[in-house]
């Protein structure tokens, strides 16, 4: 009984807590903020110490990505893309390079652009394009995210492309287990009858970052290049760090899911306390100097909704 009374001090407004649940006092909010920061700090440290436990790896079939891409193209009357082994190899090498040099960008930190991978595998293109995605749970999510972005959608629906290659690769990016999806589009030289003297390719302009965690804006601008730049390039050996089969050695917990669960629990607890507080204050007609419980409820509900609507995955 005494324990209940003591607990009530923290959760129910009464005289002992100046008619406001102790957990809703300003210093308690400060305490919760500190607690959440410590949790994030521990999570980040754990990612460095034990990267195999925390991370994200999904089961995404490249064939399904191609199928969904062609479905989207069919809707606008664009010709279906055919699978090209050279483009698949270029996509695999690009993904392997991203893991090997730890970057999430179209251009590598050393300035290597996506098109060099096309040339590396001997794919001589008239048009070429690249879409990137990471940390999605399924192929539908990947294609839906690309279709929601104007620049990526332009690539998917571009009628100039004839062939496609998709690679899905698991690895570690900035210390986190990640599943990358690399989608390469291309039209080989000689595919279009009236081939121009100069080649036009969609040039992806992206900021370079080694520890990338933010989505970056990509703009596609047609860039003319001299045909000589497509000169034959010797194909180096396969990048060793790439393409482990998906599914094996999957991390146990995704840092995103963990943060989402903890965040929901925390805000739902605060919301429950605010609701109880508001009801008691309203029923007992307590007059006090504090924020409005109804306003806190509206704001917290909106934030909880935002947490629920948050989706994992990034595109570039």
């Amino acid at each position: 009984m005494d324990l209940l009374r003591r607990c009530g001090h923290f959760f129910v407004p009464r005289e002992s807590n100046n008619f406001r649940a102790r957990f809703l006092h300003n210093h308690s909010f400060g305490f919760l903020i500190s607690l959440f920061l410590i949790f994030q700090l521990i999570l980040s440290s754990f990612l460095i110490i034990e990267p195999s436990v925390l991370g994200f790896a999904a089961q995404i079939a490249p064939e399904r990505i191609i199928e969904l891409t062609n479905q989207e193209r069919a809707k606008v009357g664009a010709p279906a893309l055919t699978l090209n082994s050279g483009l698949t190899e270029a996509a695999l090498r690009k993904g392997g390079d991203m893991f090997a040099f730890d970057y999430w960008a179209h251009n590598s930190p050393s300035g290597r652009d996506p098109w060099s991978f096309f040339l590396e595998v001997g794919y001589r293109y008239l048009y070429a394009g690249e879409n990137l995605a990471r940390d999605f749970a399924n192929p539908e999510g990947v294609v839906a995210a690309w279709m929601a972005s104007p620049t990526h959608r332009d690539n998917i629906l571009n009628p100039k492309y004839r062939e496609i290659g998709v690679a899905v690769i698991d690895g570690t990016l900035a210390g986190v287990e990640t599943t990358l999806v690399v989608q390469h589009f291309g039209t080989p030289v000689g595919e279009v009858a009236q081939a121009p003297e100069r080649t036009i390719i969609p040039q992806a302009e992206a900021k370079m970052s080694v520890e990338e965690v933010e989505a970056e804006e990509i703009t596609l601008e047609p860039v003319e290049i001299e045909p000589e730049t497509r000169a034959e390039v010797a194909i180096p050996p396969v990048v060793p760090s790439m393409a482990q089969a998906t599914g094996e050695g999957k991390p146990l917990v995704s840092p995103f899911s963990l943060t989402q669960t903890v965040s929901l629990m925390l805000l739902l607890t605060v919301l429950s306390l605010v609701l109880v507080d508001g009801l008691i204050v309203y029923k007992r007609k307590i007059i006090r100097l504090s924020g409005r419980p109804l306003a806190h409820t509206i704001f917290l509900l909106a934030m909880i909704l935002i947490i629920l609507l948050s989706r994992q995955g990034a595109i570039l």
Partner: protein
Amino acid sequence: MINKIRNLDQETRHNLIHYSVLVVMMNIAVGAFLFFGFDRIYQMIIVLAAGVGYVLWGIIHHHVNDDLHSKVVVEYILVALLAELIIFSLILRA
């Protein structure tokens, strides 16, 4: 007594408008967050704007109701800060 009821009505009406504004603000924030599905920069700006809007709403509301106090402002800032911090962490972990 009639004046008291009239005042109460006015207060209720004021509050109704105030809370409606807050609900609309938060609806816009949630809708915009959904609209900018995978654009993290925009999502962070939206969440930040929602938090700032909420604090400003609190200040204006309490000022109109003649019970604005620094303690109350701090309370709104702390609630907003807690929510913002949580959502920012989530966006950066996505």
